[in-house]
């Protein structure tokens, strides 16, 4: 996993999996990387092979943190099923999903 500061945006990429055994490090890493000037978090999911409900919980945690600042989380190029999971769980309105 890698992060970049792009002005008011925190860019997170190189996420292999976001599942029960990996969501905690992601959550800590993302929260730790958030700076006061960040209003948006952009998560590159193009390389994410797996995502489960715990991984989604971690993304909600980041969403809550950025929402408190009036910002938003954008999810970039998730696998079709991952995008579908957000719809199934009726969470697609929380995140801006940029498809492949």
């Amino acid at each position, binding site marked *: 996993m890698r992060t970049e500061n792009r002005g008011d945006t925190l860019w997170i990429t190189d996420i292999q999996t976001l599942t*029960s055994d990996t969501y905690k490090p992601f959550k800590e890493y993302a929260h730790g990387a958030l700076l006061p000037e960040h209003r948006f978090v952009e998560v590159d999911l193009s390389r994410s092979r797996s995502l489960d409900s715990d991984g989604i919980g971690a993304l909600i945690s980041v969403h809550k943190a950025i929402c408190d600042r009036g910002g938003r989380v954008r999810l970039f190029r998730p696998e*079709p099923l991952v995008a579908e999971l957000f719809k199934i769980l009726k969470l697609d309105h929380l995140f801006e999903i940029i498809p492949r």
Partner: protein
Amino acid sequence: MSQNAAIFAETYTRELPCDLRAVAEMCQQARAFFAQAGLIPAEIDAWEVVLAESANNAVNYAIQEQRQLSIRVDLLTTPEWVEVRVTDHTAGFDYPETAELPSDDSESGRGLFLIQSLTDEVRYLRGRKENCLVLRKRRTAPGSAAPPVPPTNTATELQEATRTLDLMTEELSSCYESLAAIFRFSAELQSDSNPESFLQRWMDQLLSITESNWCILRLPQSGGRELRLAASSNRDWRSEPVPLEHGSSNGSSVEARAATQRVDVWFDATSPLSPDDPLANLAGSGCGFAHPLFVNDVMVGVLAAGRHSPVPFEAGQVGIIQTFGDFLGIQIHSRQMQEEQIRTRLNTRDLEIAANIQRALLPERLPSVPGVSLAGFYRSAREIGGDYYDALPTDDGNLLLVVADVMGKGLPAAMFAFMFRSLVRARRDLAPRPGEFLAWLNQNLIQELDRAEMFITAQLAFLDYKRDEIRVAGAGHPPFLSVNAVGEVREIRAGGPPLGIVPGAKFPEETHPLAGSRFLMFTDGLFEARNANGDLLGLEAVKCNLACAGCAAEPCDVIQRRFASLLQEFEQGAPTADDTAFIVMARNDTPK
């Protein structure tokens, strides 16, 4: 991995440690298996999510020794279906028929919803020592890429069938134990009139069947504001009531949390009881749970059970405790309903007794006194009251008329009316001085009336033929009315306070000539009658009718019917709120 030609099925079985990393590895192996079985990528991705959610739950819900036991995953593909079984050794849980989504900002609680959304069938077999989640989904492209079919592996097929049967037998066995005990207790409850001894035996049995060390039953008291100890397997154990604070966390008591949150609340070494929890001294460092008992959405109690050791209950044992508790909840609810019915019956019986007393109060017929005509009237309201009238000849040949009204309704009012009547009849020698008679009655009734917080209004009228006069005294009672032949109505309001209010009260008398008049004594039910609109009949209407009766020289029985009709016509079927009693009297030598 094996392939089964007879049913064109492929199977994969893996025993994995109770560990999240092992689940992740298993998911990758499952992907490979599904790919080889010809599932399309979208199906494989979906099954990976389902497998991960199912197996992660098995890991996350395992406690202590359960973590030492493996999780078994079975995958089965046929050209039409994919079936996945995840078998764990946790205590299991109540699988919801339809999983609900948590609020948007919740970071957990979506696993079951995902599992149900991504599969066609979900069954949860909760067994005695293990639980099995069975998931099935029809394949998108049935068997299109199915590989060549090798020979049948009958041994594997048989092994699978045996495992399924074992699981079902375990489940049935725990159900049988619960059912047998429930039938036995149902029979006992029918014949046992002592609920305490029943509860004690019930608890002893529960300990024995579930290998628990203790169990506690609390029932709601004080309008549901607290849980009070109803029974304990440890007969010497005592506990203060547990307060219930709805809408709060009820942090220190697992029983309070179970009752208010309507869920089983568990405790063990990893999630220990608070030192302030009333169960802490009983449970020690052991494990257990509190199970709320609800019947028709009403909380009827909380059953807590536990062990002194950290060895958790098996799934079947949990099921028995829950089933026993739920059964007991129904019994408690049923008993409460029965008690309510008995209370209603007793109240009805109270009213019947009060009605009998009321009937006994009234004279069967008014005395036949030379030179005097009399007519009495009594009408009861929906609830029996304490209205009463009487006419008592005295030893000197005169007559005492009595009208009284005991405050209140039902049996107490009827009882006091009966006491009043007995005292009046016992001391009719006091009749010539009605004021003094009332003072004596007040003195003799005040203690009992005061204790019952009741009072009596009364009016006594003594007809003195020799003096041709009537002497009247009242105690907080409506006026005594007289009417002459030209319709002039006179109110006599002589009297003091109601009986039972003022110790040593005085009751002045007033005298009125007998000749040429008719007299009416009554209780407030006569002029306080109301119609359907709530209008009051009023004293003026009573006086007006009496004036007409006087002008028409109506006999007493006609006057009685006049007022009975007046009430009936005025009320027009409106429910009668209060008793009504009156008595009409006239000298016979006056024109009728």
